[in-house]
């Protein structure tokens, strides 16, 4: 009888413990102050060993603060869906911004990643809300004086360093390689924050011998060759060669005139652009002011959705004469040269106007149109495209900046090892896409002196993002303590094998003009992180688990 009662009491205790959600021996008040188990989602090891390894090292540091942390790998399709479309549900994720020439201007990153206006369904997926920051970010957007703008960009970076919406890990180094017996090393250009695979290399690379074709690789297939569609990253390598732009981002990371011979700001909302004379489309017709106006006005309609945000601020474009255009903006936009004139492709009106008209009243837009022979005015002409295999372009000798190579051939090589082997046996002479182990590539270049490897710090950055909609991540002190408890140097050396520099800002150190000097570095120190938490009222229970400050309790379930 007594044994039965005991058993009954035990069962009751177990049920009670399950209901309350803690083991026996803890008081109710402590249990609910205890920070729940936190979940860090990341890529599977096989798909991205660097992010996976970084997540594991980071979680190890967080555990030293008395947190229970689970690292949960997910395939990218699932992870992005979870983080992007379930914004209330997740805790932490590893994430990256990749480097692109247009990101040489900090505007896109500072505004779109951290503005309260993009928190609901835009790129501010962490839900970082800070009215003071919004003000500074918007102010730099309209500061057309570069020096004044630089001060504001610095200010924005300082605010982010203080608030730590992310833990910045590294600016990775991008690695590319080429055959120095085929290409004259003096003519390979290293663009700041981008690396040697860039527009300037492609127009300047000079063949040393009989091999005059550049044969490059990309892992992903080309999706479309369409000047009005921002498709995959590989596609943009092709489009920027076929279609010219008014402005190009130079090797120094700053905009420079291109199809525009010159430009002048008349006032903060008026820009005069003089076109280069004698430009011709690949079909032989001249490039006119009407073509240029068409190129910027067509995306304002409904049929070119991806370029629409970039021209939204243009109120009007008027041809002052045959070669001068006046752009009038709704609001001052300091990054206009880079983010609009350097982004939009110049397209021939006689080709695209009828094509866009054929879409009237249909569901499809310009993205489903594919020219048989794409016509641009750029330094390379289209020759052929075999889907899943290669794109062939040839030098346009009529162009004022005619390339020195004969043909530019982009091969789709799905297998990383095959790309490396191809570089060795001469099937490729420029390794333009390499996601494998950097040390393998460097070893290859040591064994084979014909192969030159160039590593350059990228505009892109890797980070851990915290969902600021979910406590305790809404507390900047907590986020700062996490950043201090994560051994970022270890991540740099182990996960990235030393191919990266420690990041302290969303603006890359490669962008010397924009990166704020003297940002707080938050060196690795678990003790300092614990002191910081203690000072803010956090505490630890007898098992060493972290507790919220006295007036706060856990309100959320563990992330699923």
């Amino acid at each position, binding site marked *: 009888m007594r044994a039965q009662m005991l058993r009954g009491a035990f069962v009751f205790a177990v049920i009670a413990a399950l209901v309350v959600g803690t083991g026996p021996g803890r008081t109710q008040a402590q249990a609910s102050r205890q920070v729940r188990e936190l979940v860090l989602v990341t890529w599977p090891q096989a798909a991205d060993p660097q992010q996976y390894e970084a997540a594991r090292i980071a979680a190890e540091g967080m555990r030293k603060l008395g947190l229970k942390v689970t690292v949960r790998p997910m395939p990218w399709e699932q992870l992005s869906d979870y983080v992007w479309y379930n914004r209330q549900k997740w805790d932490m994720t590893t994430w990256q911004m990749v480097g692109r020439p247009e990101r040489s201007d900090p505007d896109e990153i500072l505004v779109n990643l951290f503005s309260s206006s993009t928190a609901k369904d835009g790129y501010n997926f962490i839900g970082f809300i800070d009215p003071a920051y919004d003000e500074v970010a918007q102010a730099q957007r309209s500061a057309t004086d570069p020096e004044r703008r630089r001060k504001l960009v610095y200010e924005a970076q300082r605010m982010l360093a203080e608030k730590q919406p992310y833990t910045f890990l590294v600016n990775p180094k991008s690695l590319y390689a080429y055959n120095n017996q085929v290409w004259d090393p003096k003519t390979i250009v290293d663009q700041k924050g981008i690396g040697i695979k860039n527009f300037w290399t492609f127009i300047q690379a000079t063949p040393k011998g009989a091999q005059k074709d550049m044969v490059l690789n990309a892992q992903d297939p080309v999706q479309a060759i369409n000047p009005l569609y921002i498709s995959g990253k590989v596609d943009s390598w092709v489009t920027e060669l076929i279609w010219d732009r008014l402005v190009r981002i130079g090797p120094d990371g700053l905009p420079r005139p291109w199809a525009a011979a010159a430009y002048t700001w008349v006032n903060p909302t008026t820009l005069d652009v003089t076109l280069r004379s004698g430009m011709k489309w690949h079909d032989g017709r001249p490039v006119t002011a009407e073509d240029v106006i068409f190129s910027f006005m067509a995306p304002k309609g409904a049929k070119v959705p991806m370029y629409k945000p970039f021209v939204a601020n243009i109120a009007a474009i008027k041809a002052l004469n045959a070669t001068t255009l006046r752009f009038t903006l709704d609001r001052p936009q300091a990054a206009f040269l880079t983010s609009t004139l350097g982004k939009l492709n110049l397209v021939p009106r006689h080709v695209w106007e009828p094509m866009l008209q054929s879409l009237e009243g249909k569901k499809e837009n310009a993205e489903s149109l594919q020219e048989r022979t794409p016509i641009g005015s750029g330094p390379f002409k289209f020759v052929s495209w075999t889907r899943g295999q290669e794109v062939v372009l040839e030098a346009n000798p009529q162009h004022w900046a005619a390339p020195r190579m004969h043909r530019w051939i982009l091969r789709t*090589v799905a297998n990383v090892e*095959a790309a490396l082997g191809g570089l060795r046996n001469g*099937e490729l002479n420029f390794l333009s896409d390499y996601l494998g182990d950097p040390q393998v590539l460097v070893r290859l270049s040591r064994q084979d002196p014909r192969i030159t490897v160039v590593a350059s710090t990228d505009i892109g950055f890797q980070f851990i993002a915290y969902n600021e909609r979910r406590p305790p991540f809404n507390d900047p002190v907590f986020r700062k303590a996490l950043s201090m408890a994560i051994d970022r140097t270890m991540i740099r050396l182990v996960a990235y094998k030393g191919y990266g520099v420690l990041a302290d800002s969303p603006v890359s150190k490669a962008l010397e003009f924009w990166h704020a000097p003297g940002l707080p570095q938050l060196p690795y120190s678990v003790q300092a992180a614990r002191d910081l938490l203690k000072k803010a009222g956090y505490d630890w229970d007898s098992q060493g688990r972290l507790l919220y400050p006295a007036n706060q309790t856990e309100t959320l379930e563990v992330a699923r």
Partner: protein
Amino acid sequence: MTRASSRWIAQRLAQMLLVLWVIATILFLIFRLMPGNPLVAYIDPNFTAEQQRALVHEFGLALPLWQQYLLYLKASATGHMGQSFFYHAPVAQLVWETLPNTLILTGGAVIVAYLLGTAAGAFFAWRRGAAAEGIGIPLALAARAAPEFWVGMILLAVFSFSLRWFPSSGTASPGVQYASVWQQLTSPDFLRHLALPLATFVLYLQGLPLLLMRSSMLDVMEEEFVVMARMKGLPERRILLRHAARNALLPVATAFALVIGYSLGGDVVIENVFSWPGLGRLLVKAVASKDYPLAQGAFLLIAAVAILMNLLADLAYAWLDPRVSYAKR
């Protein structure tokens, strides 16, 4: 052809359509049950909520599921198969562009594997217990058991990267274009590109016809008609080829349909190792990027090929062995 047999074929065709419909339905559901969202391919700092809505509308994902299903069935039945989300091009066009490469590689590999496999199987059965069998069978088994991507990488490392006899990827040298499939098939450049993927594929496929032929031969060689032929004093060669091998081929022919189904799985892997621009790579990319229309279209086509091959194998069996009849008794 008798009336009974034509009725039987009509029945089989009707069954085929039913199976295809079931597969189409499963495909439709399975891709929508998979975690993820086709819009994630577009995530970018400049991707606005307005663009998201426009895409959902353009992809037809705003419609109720049953409407999507009916539209999909209609599109599949007409062979149109819809518009790919990822490439923004008609699925039919994408599939037809890559299908020849896959058919050449897979078809070629199946034929070569069958010719080599059955010949070797017959030979090993004939030489039962000889040293050739002692070495040959374990080798054939090992080649069959090794993962095909591994075999492919070994062949690449040896014959492409070290010896440089064969190119490592694609169907043609940089910048080479073929005017027609016939020109492609007869071009030495294409054949050099085909060599390594085909060899990998043959090593992967040869095991089944080889082992089946060998055991079937061993059975047949015990039969009375072989003993009879020997008693008649016919030459061994003639007994092997005209009497034993011919009869032993029957189960091997039935397994042909099985090998076709099996080879489609191998094709996906081998196309990726050798960057072969075929249906398999299109399929992998489509599944990874949640390109429902393309993935559905490609899978459906593969299923249709596999079912058709099964039907052909049944027909061939009856033709090879008159004892088998179509008609139900």
